[in-house]
Each structure stands twice: as structure tokens, then as C-alpha cells.
């Protein structure tokens, strides 16, 4: 039996990136929402992501790690083309990562400064990731219009992360803060709608390959399930936040679950557009793939480690289930 190794690794990389976007997305979103909350609420917000953020960011390392291991030719091309946004993202991730630790240990104006850096780092990292996405899906084309487009995607991804962050807070908090989070979620949803629409319209315009894949009757009809399901998930977020606002019966995890569905569907659409390219119209996963000996050796590790990884990740989320409690290292 022979495995299609490039395909397997493309799927794994997709999974790692999706996991990263959803998991670090909610804690970046919480970071961006900091200025909208008062001091006591800020402590609670930070406490809600405290046990998770380290592991969340590790998915990014895994994603870029798989790119590096499995598609070395694409790794150099992609990261070279995205040099500055990557550097900006890294500075942002560094600032927020350490601000997270420093803010709880600081006092007086220092604390204010680290809170600001936590917000700024979260925003910078999110915006830079959106820029990277915008540049990536347009095949790194130079030109003013493409840069404006990338900036819009950057802003939309910030909105998406705000939506993830606020729906996370709906799940993890109660009372006043939860009410605030419900309002934030609705704003975030509007941004996401804009972002998803923008990317969906722009990618076929930029690339004939993408256009041909989506506008190919009768397959198009089946593919329309994807945007329809996304719309339904968006509506679910809107309706669920509405019910929670009015104090009607609704699961507090529903807005988050529906948001994750939006991200997963949008990701699936993107993956369908790009496949089998790893750099659109330029390099396929097969052209970029590393030597089979490297892929096989890595796959053995993945197969052994993944079940454990999933198990203890689930364990950690179970340990910290329920509403967040403020307080450091209790």
C-alpha cells in the first residue's frame, strides 16, 4: 500500500493551521477586546485564556513546521514573499506573550503599559496574519489594488478574531461581562460577513484556476452548499446571541460553536480553491514536497504522537471547563 504523502501532509498542515486560527484566534480576539472592558473584567478575560494560550500558539509552530518539513520549496517562497508581515506578526506575538506575564506582576502605570502592549500585540499579530492571508490568496501579486485588498483582509481577520474572542467570553463568563461580550460578538459577526464575502469574490477574480473550479456547472450547485452553510452558521450566531441577550433559553457554547463552524467552512472553501496548489498557480503540493524518506519518518511521529496530543489537549480543556475565575496561579 502506498500513501499519497504530499496529500496527507497537505491535510495535516491544513488541520494545524485551522486549529491555530480557531484556538489562537479566540485568545488574540480577547486581547483585542481589552480596551473595551474595565480593570476587573480585564483580569477575568485574561484568566479565561491563561491556561491555554501557550498551547494555542504551538499550533502555529506546527503549521509552519509542516510547511518546512513537507513542502520546503514552498516554505522559502512563501515566507520570503511575506517577510515583513511575518516579522510584524512575530513582534506582535512576542509583545502580547510577555505582556500576558508582565501585566499581572506589574503595578501602577506599568500595568497600564503592559495592558496596552497586550492589546497592541494582539492587534498587530492578527492584522499581520490577515495581511499574510490576503497576499497569499492573491499569489503575492504586486500592485496597489492588491495591497489595499490585503489590508481589508487584515481588518476582516481582526473582526473574525474579535468574534471568536467574544463568543469564547460568552462561554467563559457571566453577568455584566457576558452581556458586553454578546454586543461585541454581533459587531464581530458583521466584520466577518464582510471579510468572507470579500475573499470569496476576490479569489475567483484574481485567479482563473479558482474561477474554473467554482463556476463549473453542475458542480457549482453542489458547491453552493458551502456558502449556504456559512450563512446558516452566521445566522445561528446572530440568533443565539439575541436569545442570550434577552435571557431566553440557549446554550452559552452555541455562539462559539457556530463561529467555529463559520471559520471551518470558510477554510474548507479556501482549501478547495487552492488545491492542489501550495502557492496559487505557481507550485503544487507535489512539486514542493520533500523527499519521501523525510515525510515517512515524520508521519510515523505524527501517527504516534497525535492521539496523545489530542488526549491531553481535551484533558486540559476539561480541567478548566466552566466559567473563568480571576486570580493568578491558584
Amino acid at each position, binding site marked *: 500500500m502506498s500513501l499519497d504523502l504530499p496529500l496527507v501532509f497537505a491535510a495535516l498542515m491544513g488541520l494545524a493551521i485551522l486549529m491555530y486560527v480557531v484556538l489562537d484566534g479566540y485568545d488574540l480576539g480577547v486581547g483585542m477586546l481589552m480596551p473595551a472592558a474595565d480593570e476587573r473584567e480585564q483580569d477575568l478575560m485574561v484568566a479565561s485564556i491563561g491556561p491555554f494560550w501557550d498551547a494555542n500558539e504551538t499550533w502555529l*509552530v506546527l503549521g509552519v513546521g509542516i510547511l518546512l518539513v513537507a513542502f520546503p520549496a514552498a516554505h*522559502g517562497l512563501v515566507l*520570503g514573499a511575506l517577510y*515583513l508581515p511575518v*516579522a510584524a506578526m512575530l*513582534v506582535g506575538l512576542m509583545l502580547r506573550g*510577555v505582556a500576558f506575564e508582565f501585566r499581572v506582576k506589574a503595578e501602577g502605570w506599568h500595568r497600564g503599559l503592559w495592558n496596552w502592549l497586550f492589546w497592541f500585540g494582539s492587534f498587530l499579530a492578527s492584522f499581520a496574519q490577515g495581511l499574510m492571508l490576503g497576499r497569499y490568496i492573491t499569489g503575492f501579486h504586486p500592485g496597489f489594488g492588491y495591497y489595499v485588498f490585503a489590508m481589508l483582509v487584515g481588518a476582516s481577520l481582526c473582526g473574525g478574531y474579535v468574534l471568536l474572542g467574544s463568543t469564547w467570553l460568552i462561554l467563559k463568563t457571566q453577568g455584566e461581562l457576558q452581556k458586553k461580550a454578546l454586543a461585541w460578538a454581533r459587531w464581530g459577526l458583521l466584520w466577518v460577513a464582510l471579510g468572507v464575502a470579500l475573499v470569496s469574490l476576490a479569489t475567483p477574480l484574481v485567479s482563473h484556476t479558482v474561477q474554473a473550479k467554482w463556476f463549473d456547472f453542475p458542480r457549482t450547485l453542489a458547491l453552493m452548499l458551502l456558502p449556504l452553510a456559512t450563512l446558516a452558521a452566521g445566522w445561528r450566531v446572530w440568533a443565539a446571541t439575541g436569545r442570550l441577550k434577552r435571557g431566553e433559553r440557549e446554550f452559552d457554547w452555541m455562539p462559539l460553536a457556530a463561529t467555529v463552524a463559520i471559520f471551518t467552512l470558510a477554510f474548507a472553501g479556501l482549501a478547495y480553491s487552492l488545491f492542489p496548489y501550495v502557492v496559487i498557480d505557481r507550485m503544487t503540493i507535489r512539486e514542493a514536497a520533500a523527499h519521501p524518506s*523525510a515525510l515517512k519518518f515524520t508521519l510515523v511521529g505524527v501517527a504516534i504522537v497525535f492521539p496523545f496530543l489530542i488526549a491531553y*489537549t481535551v484533558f486540559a480543556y476539561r480541567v478548566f471547563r466552566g466559567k473563568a475565575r480571576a486570580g493568578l496561579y491558584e
Partner: protein
Amino acid sequence: MDQSDVLLLARAQFGLNIAFHILFPSLTIALGWLLFYFRIRYARSGDPAWLATYKLWTKVFALSFAMGVVSGITMSFQFGTNWPGYMQRVGNIAGPLLAYEVLTAFFLEATFLGVMLFGMNRVPGWVHVLSAAMVAIGTTISAFWILALNSWMHTPAGHEMDGSQLVAGDWLQVIFNPSFPYRFTHMLLASGLTASFVVAGLSAWRLLRSGDDASARKTLRTGLVLAAVLAPLQILVGDLHGLNTLEHQPAKIAAIEAIWKTEKGAPLVLFAVPDDERRRNDFAVEIPKGASLVLRHDPEAEVQGVEAFVPDAAPVAPVFFAFRVMVGMGVLMLLAAWTGAWATRRGMLPQRWMLWAFSGFTFAGWIATLAGWLVTEIGRQPWLVTGILRTREAVGGASGAQLGASLTGYIITYTVMLIAYLVVLTHLAGKGADA
């Protein structure tokens, strides 16, 4: 801007990043095990002083770990952005080793760190102790993989060619390459020494600030005794590592010893100012036939000099000086640790001047570790992977302007982070375990 400037900037940026990064793992690898020890002591005795100790050092660990994580993420990207040629040439070997580090170590330590930091009241005691063990195991596994890769770059083994591609023929030989056992042990001991001096130094600082503190006395003693045991071991392992280097990377040894010409009965250069331009030593203080005796155990044996390796000889001056800083720090640390272990016997409190001295040695491990890495990494130049890939062949397409702009950003960020880190560390230590 010509290619050599781009190479210089790429090296400066990566060097800065990796030097900044290594500070934190070199502390957390061993501190993870110390935390596990503190946690066990508390679980066994129920003594609140051990709990307080554990909690204080958990904060230090969390802070240092975060610094390591964020600078490490940066490095995972810089492999691609700064050295695309590296991945193109040896990606089939380097890639999987890095992937194994992420898979087996990063998730383990990050996830269980969350449980360890925030879960003490949420999980049973034994699960919490187990989490502390998982974090320590995770940091050590991480060191295992990264040192396997680094050692392979120094002493490649187990690889073969498949067409134009370099691939692994035997993964066990790749991982357990000739220098790996020495380098891995040397680094673990370096981490042990770094952590024990940080623990002892900050505890001494606490005792200076407060007069007395049961928890700080415990940790001062723990740090000093551990260092007193590890320091002589490290000197022994370092010597073995040196002999291994002589066998596999004689060019590096020639640079370390500043021996320019291949000769019989080569002198041991104690001090000199090596001149790389004119290939000679100024102001040299030498022991005749010393190098032959130390390296070959025979005063008349032949020792290869730098000239034997031209044009692929390493720069001598930085390697020569960094080596002497490392060895000098090692000897000072040995003396400090033994003095300290003696001065704290049977629960005694050392005199104030001694506490000041230990405080002064808080970051001694960092200096020695950085100096050691400079020796080994500059000593490998001009090779990135010995005999396979030169550093200048790996540099990538990023322009000088991009490198310059991001380098400026990194310098500012790292400076802010390092200052804040040191301020918080001193502040935490000053408040002590009851804070």
C-alpha cells in the same frame, strides 16, 4: 547593497535571535526539574515553606518560559526567511527533527504548563505533581531534538545522496551522530548550572533584602549544592567534548587554541591577541609543547594549525576569546559553588559579602552558556553544516532593507523584553515567597 552585507545582516539577525532565545531554555530546562523537586518536597512534607517556594519559582518559570516560547516561534520562521538555502539543501534531515521537537515536546510542555500554573485547585494532588513532571520532561525532550539537529550540523552522519537530494539513510545515526552525546550532556549540565545559580543568586538577593526567610534559605542551599555537584561534572564533560571536537572538527580546535601553523610540540597559548589578518598571535603567553600534551597526550605530537584548513578555516579571535570566557566563568562558578556549599552547611547563613557575591553570580550561567555557544557556532564557520553547506550558500532572497528594518524591530523588542524581565525577576525575588 552587495551580497556580503546581506549575509552579515542575516547572520546578525539570526545570531541575535538565537542568543536571546537560548537564555530562556537554558534556564527553564533545569528549572522545570527543580520545580518538580519543590513540588514533590511539598507533597511529601506538607511544609508551607516548600509550597511558597514552589509558587514563587513557578512565576519565574512561567515568565522565562513565555520569553522562550515567543522568541522560539520567531526562530521557527527565521529558518525559512533568513536561510532558505539551508532547508533546500538539508531540509530532508533538519525538517523532521524539528517536527519531532514540536510534536513530542512543545505541545506537552505548553499544555501541562497550563495545568501546572492554573490547575492546582482543580485537579487531584498527584495529577498536579504529574503535570510538573510532564513540563520538565517536555523541556528536556525539546533539548534532545534541537541538540540532535545542532550536533548533526557539526558532525553530520547517517545521510546519503538520492539523486541531487541529501536524505537520511539511517535516522539513528543522524540523531546519535558523533558529537551528540557530548553536546547534549554538556548543554543539560549548562542548564543545571544556569538554573542553580539563578535560584541561589535570587535567594541570596532575597536574604539581603529581608534579613531572613525560611524559603529563601532552603533555595539558596538547594542552588548552591546542586551547582557544587554539577560544576566539576561539567568541567569533565566539557573536556571530553573538546576531545570529541578534536577528532571530528580539528579546525575548531585550532581556532580555540590559536595555533596557526601545523607543528610538532605545539605550545599551549594561555593568552594572546590573535590577529586573523596576519595569522599570528600578539602578546602571547605560552606553555611550550603544552597543546601537544593536552590534546594528544604526547609533548612531541603534531597538532594541526589554522593554515591546514584554509580556505575553510574558522575565524580565530572570537572563538579564542569566547572559549576563555567560558572556561574562566566555569572555574569561577566552581569556586563560588564550593565556597557556598561549605558556607551554608548545617543550616548556616553565609555572611553578607558572600550573599552579595552569590547575587552577583545570578546570571553567571548565561555568560558561560552564551560564550560556549559562540565557541561552537563560530568555530564551525564557514560551514553551516560541516563539509556539506557553507553559511553564505544558505542566505536567502530577503533584501538588505527588509533585514535591516526587521532587525531594528527585533532589537527594540528584545531590549524592552529583557529589561522588563530582569526588573520583574528582581522584584519577585525581593518580595520573596510570601508575596
